[in-house]
């Protein structure tokens, strides 16, 4: 393998990895403030992707303009889901285990509803946007401009998230709630409002990821679950609540997949991620207390 191929694979991996990291950051945020594993997270991404696709196809709206639109609409969607689905559950006064079971099935139902609604509205056809496909040359590498845009947007959003979480009052409140809900409440943080905003921001990130994905990947109504599982891998390997870890783990997964599909064939692309996830959890559950259940 020559250097150019190596760099090309690396670059492809970074593009995908950045996308995984973005989706995982949203999932991580929601898990942090609500302790919910949103299995329908990838479906929000799918909605963002379709929004971008239709705006582009019907009115030639550039995906870069649809991107903030997707973010805002998924933010609102997330808030509505929280009000409609999570609030009634919280009123039941459930134990942690019961709450986890209930949210798992609730979001599984959301996944089913969104998938079949998308299937009804837009059929199962594969949708592709041809946007900014002209190659850009960086040294010996030739890469489609849209892929560079993806990397750039991911970096910008990640930086904004980092600054927001570290330096604003809202960001500090989100981190406090993620670390310890009870103490956060004692410190005067409105835990419920932070949960609502966190859910909204996490969903908005999924919308942004969808907008980006629509330019470099085929969109179908069932595209979501695969991305949810990948985001979960990234979130676990990167560490719950760790933003830097998430970005790094996302990039690593993307690069790993890129090399795995080159050397072993495309059918092993998804497999490589699962193997890493399983090995990592098994290893960590024996060495790190963070992977061991304290109280169920």
């Amino acid at each position, binding site marked *: 393998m020559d250097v150019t191929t190596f760099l090309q694979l690396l670059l492809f991996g970074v593009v995908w990895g950045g996308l995984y990291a973005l989706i995982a950051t949203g999932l991580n945020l929601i898990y942090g403030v609500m302790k919910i594993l949103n299995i329908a997270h990838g479906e929000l991404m799918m909605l963002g992707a379709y929004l971008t696709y239709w705006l582009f196809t019907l009115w030639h709206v550039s995906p870069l303009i649809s991107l903030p639109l997707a973010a805002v609409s998924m933010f609102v969607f997330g808030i509505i889901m929280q009000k409609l689905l999570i609030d*009634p559950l919280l009123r039941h006064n459930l134990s942690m285990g019961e709450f986890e079971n209930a949210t798992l*099935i609730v979001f599984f139902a959301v996944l*089913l509803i969104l998938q079949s609604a998308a299937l009804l509205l837009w059929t199962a056809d594969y949708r592709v946007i041809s946007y900014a496909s002209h190659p850009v040359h960086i040294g010996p590498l030739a890469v489609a401009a849209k892929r560079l845009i993806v990397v750039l947007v991911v970096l910008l959003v990640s930086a904004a998230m980092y600054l927001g979480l570290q330096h604003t009052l809202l960001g500090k409140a989100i981190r406090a709630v993620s670390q310890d809900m009870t103490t956060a409440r004692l410190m005067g943080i409105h835990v419920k409002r932070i949960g609502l905003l966190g859910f909204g921001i996490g969903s908005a990130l999924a919308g942004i990821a969808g907008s980006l994905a629509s330019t470099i990947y085929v969109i179908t109504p069932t595209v979501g679950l695969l991305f949810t599982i990948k985001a979960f891998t990234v979130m*676990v390997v990167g560490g719950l609540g760790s933003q830097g870890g998430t970005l790094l783990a996302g990039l690593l997964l993307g690069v790993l997949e890129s090399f795995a599909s080159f050397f072993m064939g495309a059918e092993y692309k998804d497999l490589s991620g699962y193997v890493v996830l399983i090995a990592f959890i098994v290893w960590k559950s024996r060495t790190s207390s963070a992977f061991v259940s*304290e109280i169920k």
Partner: protein
Amino acid sequence: MTGAPAKGVIVALVALLLMLPAWGSAYAISFLVSVLLYVALAGSWNLFSGTTGYASLGQGLFFGLGAYAFGVSTVLLKWHPVVGIVLAAAVSAVAAVLLGLVLLTTRIRVAYFAIVMLGVNEVVKTVVANIKAVGSSSGLTIPPLSTNLIAYYFLLFLAIGVTALSYLIKHSRWGLGLKAILADEVAAEVTGVGTVAHKMAMFVLSGTLIGPAGAMIAWYWSYIDPYIAFDLSVSFDMVVMSIFGGVGTVMGPVLGAVIISGVKEALSTSIPQFHTIIFGVLVLGLILWCPGGLMQVYRILHRRITGGPRPARSRGAQ
């Protein structure tokens, strides 16, 4: 459900199901085959995940392993189908022991356990799809059943067996140990409950019961490929049905499986366009109203009708 009237209802129902093929149509039989399959699957999922709290999102792995053990032994090795079903149970049991030794000997976080099981299912699916000897992704064609009644009776007995086992375990000393693990694993261990033995035994039991169900369905379908044998929806359906009915209860998974497969069938024939959406909305409505599932609804109704005292709120997923 306890008491003499409930026992009478159960005996009558089983008798009805045993005699049903005498007048039931072919459509009724094929519908009941899928209902009984899901009663067996949801009940088996509940035997491990419902009693210990370790929700598995990949228990369909054993379904696929059972289906492939059956396919390989009857088609490639030309062994008798009965041997194939026994082999399916054995393969699932061995796989469960190996997985259990890795995952259940520590107190792994529930969410991580759930996702690892899902991952193992996907890995095995991909590996099977790339083994030429077992037909790669195009799968195996299996000589069909001489009559669907074989599948009907096999799954009927399996479903009854799983439910009876669940009842016996719940009301035994072993069941008390599981209850302690569900409530607080550390406390259980400190009090002298062999937590690893309890978790391992239930996990292996669950897998060993799911394997033969997969084998019988492979025979009934007379065809398997990696994507239907290791389909994630098999894994998810067990979970949804158990939680919908009532996790950790004996009758919950039975009710969940019967009602969900019934509603799905009714909706998909009457309103094929919107059936998944309506189904999703129904599930949402029930869980938001009663997070404990149908068994919680049953308890509320029972209390209203008999006017009995308010039962103490149960801790954990009872």
